[in-house]
């Protein structure tokens, strides 16, 4: 195998298995690995070896895409620990968060309905701050307290916030033209 498929994504990039990672380090390791396996480096290989390099390049990109974003990184950490974030049901979630969800939804839907670009951008900004808070909490839960149950709950919140961001972006994209 060109890239050791038995390694987890963190090990592949030579990073410690943590939520809080050094993003610059991740980028550097990604570039260094792609410099070896990228198809551009193997244009003249016979088919079988181009495929080998291609499998490596695909794996490296998949690993990078997973670790780069906090949400997919967190889900991957849960995966490695054998916890499925999707299985935790909504009922168990704090009612405070459910109310917050509804408020966000309403605000986004209203801004979209009125075609209010400023309001959507304002919401996007607020959302970014909220996501930062939640990711900080996640780092604590994963890395210092090592409380995976709590982390799984926080991941669910982050999933919701991520969907909200997609909605806001879609709303803004629709108002672009």
């Amino acid at each position: 195998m060109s890239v050791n498929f038995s390694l987890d994504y963190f090990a592949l990039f030579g990073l410690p298995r943590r939520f809080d990672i050094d993003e610059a380090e991740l980028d550097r390791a990604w570039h260094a690995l792609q410099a070896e396996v990228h198809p551009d480096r193997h244009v003249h290989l016979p088919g079988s070896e181009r495929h080998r390099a291609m499998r490596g390049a695909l794996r490296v990109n998949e690993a990078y895409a997973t670790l780069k974003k906090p949400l997919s990184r967190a889900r991957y950490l849960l995966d490695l620990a054998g916890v499925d974030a999707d299985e935790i049901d909504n009922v168990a979630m704090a009612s405070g968060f459910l109310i917050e969800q509804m408020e966000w939804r309403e605000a986004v839907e209203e801004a979209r309905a009125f075609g209010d670009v400023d309001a959507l951008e304002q919401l996007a900004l607020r959302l970014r701050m909220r996501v930062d808070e939640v990711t900080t909490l996640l780092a604590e839960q994963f890395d210092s307290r090592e409380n995976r149950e709590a982390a799984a709950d926080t991941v669910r919140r982050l999933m919701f916030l991520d969907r909200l961001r997609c909605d806001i972006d879609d709303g803004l994209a629709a108002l672009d033209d």
Partner: protein
Amino acid sequence: MTLLQIAEPGMSAAPHQHRLAAGIDLGTTNSLVATVKNGIAVCLSDEEGRALMPSIVHYRGDGGLDAGHAALGARVADPRNTIVSVKRFMGRGFADVAHIETMPYVFEETPGMLRLRTVQGSKSPVEISAEILRALRLRAEASLGGELAGAVITVPAYFDDAQRQATRDAARLAGLHVLRLLNEPTAAAVAYGLDNAVEGVYAVYDLGGGTFDLSILKLTRGVFEVLATNGDAALGGDDFDHRLYCWALDQARIAPPSAEDTRRLQMKAREVKELLSMSEEAPFRLRLGPGVSVDLTVSRAAFSEMTKPLVQKTLVPIRRALRDAGLSVRDIKGVVMVGGATRMPHIQRAVAAFFGQEPLTNLDPDKVVALGAAMQANVLAGNRKPGDGGWLLLDVIPLSLGLETMGGLSEKIVPRNATLPVARAQEFTTYKDGQTAMAFHVVQGERELVADCRSLARFELRGIPPMAAGAARIRVTFQVDADGLLSVSARETGTGVEASILVNPSYGLADSEIADMLRAGFERAGEDLAARNLREQQVEAGRLLEAVAQALAVDGGLLDAPERAAIDAAMARLRGLIDSPGDAPALAGGIAALARATEEFAARRMDRSIRAALAGQKIGEL
């Protein structure tokens, strides 16, 4: 080649042996070919010193054909058989092309990609583009004094899979070995970034004759990473001409013009548009059919006003790309302007206003794409000097790939702006007992409804082992390679049975059609297809032998004696096959045998280089 490149990717096997490689900018309006000579990228000119070749093909009544400058005169004299801006038709159906009613061609409303009826019969846009590429290949080979080992062809970043596939097919028909399809803004960034040794986040604004691209790239230590790309594959200088053309028709109050007059008016519109980049006012004066003439004057301000919606239209992709990259205009260190249409002052003003900085116009907007492509072709062909770490291009897929699901919805499988190459797998199951086949519809685009996306292909999986309904687990893998081209594979995970896939491209040519066109092309050129195949195999075999020898010299120590003996034997056999005037299949067999014999060796070498990369030994070289 093989093993060698693993040790020193892209480094030349024998330093003195330079492989002829070219970068080709296949433009809507103009095409160019460039190469790296003595370490410097240069555009290759024709005998009259012209680098730009008009992307025009004239099918003559006498069976002959003109491409480029030679076809210019026929635009008015024989509009029906003189094809301009054929790039707009690549991978597109009749219903997709804007302003098709003002075009002087006879279209055939075939399903899938449209076709044109010419005096020489029915022509696909792929065949017409191939004529332009062929002319450029001949120019390069005459100028460089030998056959090209390979070429990098540029495409708009926002081209979808069908348009890319059509371009690749055209190159094949033109007798080119395609090293890579390279996105135009990325090629421009390579030329600009390497020339100016810049670092940071840059935007490339590329407005050509028929396409608009906006790419955001991060340049760090020899890595060109595309963060996001967006654009409009049907927006360019041609649309500005069209506005002016409609305005002139309206002002002059003339009846719908003939095909010849339409051409005249369109050419005049382009001329006036270009003049207005230099002066405040330009005459729109033209004598048409008997007794009809146009005598108008256009001011820059009026032109700018009538084309404002087009300028605004280019700002939409910028906003989207910024949003996808998670950046704001303040994060953009510079804006590189590419494409002839960026010479329009109101474009430059709009871009400056949007980004809050003057765009970078200190490079030749016509040539920079071809130059970047030539630099990349040079590296891919293996012409790097020892010790030159080269650079790395990490590009993205411009539009999401989706699968049609119940209710005509598209379920996204690969998101836009994913770094290439990328693969995503999806699992499906059968819904009937004993079901052995399954159909998929793959689309590209961001919209929710399949009907609003581009249909790419319908796939049919066959050979699924018969099982009870719901028992089969079919894992379908969608893979997009570095050219941005999709391939699909499938297997039943329980039994490991590989399902065969029947691909029906919605807007592409079937392999059999390409094969027929290839054969016809060779016949016309008086070449023998079999002889050419054999020659290619011989070159390939030579390369492989050279690479293995080089790798053994450096890393022979990774092998024990029996392993070494097996490789030596396979090399000797292949050498024998090259020397004896044999047939292509035997030679192909020998190549495959040597590749197999060295597989484990290659794996060990690559493992080692990966470990070295992780240990940080190679990072400094980037």
